[in-house]
């Protein structure tokens, strides 16, 4: 049996610069590939001699989008095509997008929160007829900080997708709304019974968005959020990713707001 703590070698097959500090790396297995991740699951990416971090799957291949924010993510960010990456996974829960079939889908993403939601939207668009309205609310610090700009442009051009973009601070040339994603979200008229929401971003953003959706009388169990905590093993053995009763790597990262809401409300839990 293979040891889940030992990575499988992959190599960087493609590298796309997304923003000033983010890249998308398309990985290719050097030998036998790992099982395909379900939407919302994550992989542990190991950079030779530097360390390992949990990264969501942002596209096919698998593709991982990495923002350089720490020692390991910076090292991964700087990898060039052909270099080796160790991969473990896939781990964790999925968005369960299938359960949203027949309903309206609202996707809310703040900053890098768009990464694990991009495959969700891609899947919804692949089965567009299975869903009602499709709304995407995406926020970034500046216009240049939007990930996947080409795709955003193509979604913006579709009549069957409502794309709302907002930036944190006014910027030259930006004519869209300025403010947090909560504002366009609050302005949406939703059918609370038939809406299913998928949120990813900083915790205060997810909480604020969930509260808005709850105020619109959506049920907390129809709001799915993706959580982030420190992870060393990814398989429920190291204890780092605890959030109250959750081992986020095992019971998350994607959970219902019925579970996440009371936990996120407690400071330093």
């Amino acid at each position, binding site marked *: 049996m293979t040891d889940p703590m030992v990575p499988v070698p992959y190599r960087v097959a493609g590298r796309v610069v997304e923003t000033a500090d983010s890249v998308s790396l398309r990985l290719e297995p050097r030998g036998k590939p790992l099982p395909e991740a379900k939407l919302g699951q994550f992989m542990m990416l190991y950079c030779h001699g530097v360390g390992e971090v949990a990264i969501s799957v942002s596209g096919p291949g698998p593709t991982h989008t990495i923002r350089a924010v720490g020692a390991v993510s910076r090292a991964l960010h700087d990898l060039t095509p052909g270099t080796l990456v160790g991969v473990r996974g896939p781990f964790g829960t999925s968005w369960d997008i299938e359960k949203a079939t027949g309903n309206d889908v609202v996707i809310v993403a703040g900053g890098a929160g768009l990464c694990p939601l991009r495959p969700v939207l891609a899947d919804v668009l692949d089965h567009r007829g299975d869903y009602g309205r499709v709304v995407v609310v995406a926020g970034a610090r500046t216009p240049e900080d939007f990930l996947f700009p080409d795709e955003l442009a193509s979604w913006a051009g579709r009549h069957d997708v409502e794309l709302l973009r907002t930036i944190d601070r006014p910027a030259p040339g930006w004519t869209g709304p300025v403010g947090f994603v909560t504002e366009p979200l609050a302005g949406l008229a939703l059918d609370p019974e038939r809406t299913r929401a998928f949120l990813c971003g900083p915790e205060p953003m997810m909480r604020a968005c969930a509260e808005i959706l709850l105020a619109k009388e959506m049920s907390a169990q129809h709001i799915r959020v993706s959580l982030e905590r420190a992870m060393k093993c990814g398989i429920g053995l190291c204890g780092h990713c605890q959030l109250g*009763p959750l081992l986020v790597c095992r019971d998350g990262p994607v959970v219902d707001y019925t579970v996440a809401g009371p936990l996120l409300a407690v400071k330093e839990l």
Partner: protein
Amino acid sequence: METQVLDRTGLGQLVDALRDEGYRVIGPTVRDNAIVLAELDSAEQLPAGWGVTTAPGRYRLRRRDDEAVFGHSSGPQSWKSYLHPPRRKLFEVNRTGEFTPAPEDDPRYAFLGVRGCDLAAIAILDRVLGAGAHPDGSYQRRRRELFVVAVNCTEPGELCFCTSMGTGPAAGPGYDLGLTERADGDGHRFVVDVGTSKGAQLLGKLTVRPAAEGEVREAREDVAAAAGRMGRAMPEADLPTAIREARESPQWEEVASRCLTCGNCTMVCPTCFCTTTEDVTDLTGDHAERWQRSASCFELDFSYVHGGSVRTSGSSRYRQWFSHKLGTWHEQFGSSGCVGCGRCIAWCPTGIDITEEAAKLAEYPGGTP
């Protein structure tokens, strides 16, 4: 089969027989003014005639007036050091990307002198590390090979509360052989309970005599009486609920004013299992290794994600440890994470008492009035 009795010579044979079968025998011995666990070459190394006196923040050896070898309560170590070692290599890798898992040279251990509390702790580690979707292979291999000689406790310490946790003073299930030590006018001897066929087989190699009339009953009575002599008790309350309701209690701040966040409690706890990883390279950077080592939820960087740690305050870190041990452990692994050994009380430099803190929370979940 009749209950058998070993004398002190028979106990020596037990160690020798286990060693002959290729086991590394781990048991209590005296070192640095404490009863520690170490590999034993013979039963002569057992702490004959040594007892301990414990109190919050205090642990002292004392001379007993008999030659009992298991007449002491828990020391600073627990069996997890052997089943879940504090430092372990996970893999090596070179620049060409060949990941080589660390060799599976996991030793065959025989544990001598496992108390009820500690046997329950091993059962908890089995659920945490050995029973999930992705079990720890090294733990599983060590555990599979393990031979357990348990000891029923007849001498609980001042900080013990196994009775209230349902883990002792009688040991088991889960042992191969179980001993009840008797040192009185009738001599120094061990009444033996057989737990497995492996245990019976080993016992067959030793010099034993059948138990005399009343000997087994007396041994059982001794163990039963120990249940009434616990120095501490965990409150009989629905702790998971009380702790959940007490998340915002001012009690955590009060404990934090006494807690040094040193992590001693997590080191001595027989069920604290958390680990972190370390990446090392040689000077050229070609050869890299990843190691796993023990970690503590009291460490500031334990909850570090980019941008900072989730739990920076001492109160949040104490709350995490306490709430996990007595509360959320139930949801995660189906039982409490506490077995009532009392180690965390003895080895806390400021003597914080988990049973006392639990009692306060159980009484006033929202905080002291």
